[in-house]
């Protein structure tokens, strides 16, 4: 087929190009530009080369120390909530009814936390955990447990983790439930005939059939928890001290609190890069796990 050359077609692409340029390319390039410079306000900039990136990766500097500390906090937080939410989500999905009106009821109840805006979730738990007026804090303290998320590191972490589990386990459970629903009855019947125990049914049928949705669930939860900002900001504000200061909170402090645009730009680029790399790793794992090699003919 001959290709028609029509220069007017460029005009049709132009609007998209402009939108993408203004919404993505220009802001990103601005950040790249900032990351190479230093500013003392007054819109005066000084060239700094890769200085900020060097500092960022050097734990002996202030910036590097703050970045690495918050990076570990982020990784630890993601690991903990994945370790809790994935198994818990599977258990919830397995114990949900398979049919009848109770299915709809369960789905609505599960979906409720997902519909609440992040800062509202933060506010709910901020008040819920207060020892003076919050139900949780008040009850715990009256039971003789000294609970105070404002002054105790462990209490602050526990509150944020429980809050995240409360907010997001539903997502894992809903995805797993969808995966479970797609298993044909014949599998369960065959397993009965093969004399499989409940555990064998889980490991031989349910878990393998859920692996695609589980990968999606892990991916979504990792990304979301790695980018978490609003809830810990509302509940603990990053405290006590810096104990719950995640990368995003650190970033906002540097960019808007200190107005160190260069440092903040370098940090946000590295932050972005980490997320893209992890996305890529997950994507590769998922596509490889899902790709079945074509079956060989003539196996009869």
């Amino acid at each position: 087929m001959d290709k028609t050359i029509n220069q007017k077609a460029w005009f049709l692409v132009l609007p998209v190009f402009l939108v993408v340029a203004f919404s993505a390319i220009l802001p990103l390039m601005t950040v790249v530009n900032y990351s190479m410079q230093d500013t003392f306000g007054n819109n005066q900039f000084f060239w700094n080369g890769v200085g900020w990136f060097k500092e960022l990766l050097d734990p002996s500097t202030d910036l590097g120390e703050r970045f690495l500390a918050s990076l570990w906090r982020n990784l630890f937080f993601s690991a903990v909530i994945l370790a809790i939410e994935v198994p818990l989500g599977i258990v919830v999905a397995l114990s949900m009814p398979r049919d009848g009106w109770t299915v709809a009821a369960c789905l609505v109840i599960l979906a409720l936390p997902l519909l609440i805006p992040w800062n509202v979730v933060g506010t709910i738990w901020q008040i819920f955990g207060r020892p003076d007026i919050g139900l949780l804090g008040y009850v715990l303290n009256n039971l003789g447990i000294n609970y105070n998320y404002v002054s105790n590191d462990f209490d602050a972490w526990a509150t944020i983790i429980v809050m995240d589990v409360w907010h997001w386990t539903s997502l894992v459970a809903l995805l797993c439930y969808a995966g479970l629903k797609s298993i044909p009855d014949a599998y369960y019947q065959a397993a009965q005939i093969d004399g499989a125990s409940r555990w064998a049914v889980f490991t031989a049928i349910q878990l393998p059939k859920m692996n695609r949705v589980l990968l999606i669930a892990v991916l979504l939860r990792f990304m979301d928890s790695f980018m978490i900002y609003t809830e810990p900001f509302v509940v603990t504000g990053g405290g006590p001290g810096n104990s719950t200061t995640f990368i995003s909170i650190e970033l906002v402090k540097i960019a808007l609190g200190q107005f160190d645009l260069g440092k903040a730009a370098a940090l946000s680029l590295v932050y972005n890069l980490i997320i893209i790399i992890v996305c890529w790793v997950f994507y590769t794992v998922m596509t490889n796990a899902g790709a079945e090699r074509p079956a060989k003919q003539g196996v009869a």
Partner: protein
Amino acid sequence: MARIDLVDLAHSYGGNDAPPESFALKPVTMTWRQGGAYALLGPSGCGKTTLLNLISGIVTPSRGKILFDGKDITPLSTQKRNIAQVFQFPVIYDTMTVGQNLAFPLKNRNVPKAEIDKRVAEIAGLLDLAPYVDRKATRLTADAKQKISLGRGLVRADVAAILFDEPLTVIDPELKWQLRSKLKALHRALDLTMIYVTHDQTEALTFADTVVVMHDGRVVQSGTPAELFDRPAHTFVGYFIGSPGMNIVPAEVRGREARIDGHTIALNRNYDGLPPAAKIEIGVRPEFVDVAPPGSGLLSAQIERIDDLGRVRFARVRVGDVKFAARVPAGFSVPDNTAGLVFDPSHVHVYADSLLVEGK
């Protein structure tokens, strides 16, 4: 290995209090011989899968009992019945190799490892799966997967019967023949009771010694393929088995004569004393009606078209308002519009309210 008896077995998905006519399986009493090859044949929705699931225990009957070798196993769970079942779509444990799939039922029953390995190797050999034992089962073709499902039943030495629920649905046509001959060979080699559910009469007639025809939740006839062909006990059997199916025509029957459209056909037996209120029909297979030149003494029919099946030709004709199929004898040139029909009296059956009447 066992004889299976069904005693007054019935099932309704709407519970025991549902009206009798709505039962998916109406009360049935029958015996499945040890070592028999049975086919359960019937159209979709006739209750054949329900009957199969009752035997395997996936469904608990609303009424009646199931006996294995005289022992009542109705309350036993599927796990405790020694039944194997192959489903319409291959069921494969995705993460396991072919060998692990075959070993799964034995592992679940805590059979010693040496014994498992021996049985798996034996069954893999029997099913021509030996070269694939260490391969992931998900990578195989549908027919190999069905063999694995079957193999999971065969590995258990104590299995009483193997049930097949339309197992060839997803198999390519040329492989269907291979797999079906494999099943027949296994049946001869292993002396197992096999029950094969299908809606395909060719599959049923080639696989089974005994074909059980079901219609609307009832077993209407059970017999050898020849019996079903020669003496259908119900008009449904006549119509469902054979291609084209049996001609069923309303008629007046008196003594040794049947009258259709004012014309008299001789019968081989005496049918005096038919129930007066019943709907009387005669049934005759197209193979036993010949087309002839119109003549006096022959039932005359309007020819609509000729189906040439290669080996035989069938004329589609019309007698009054009734459609009829009749054989065209070899070398006979068919007249344009009107023909006479010649009946073979020994193959003309009389049905009262759809049930075969034995003449005297």
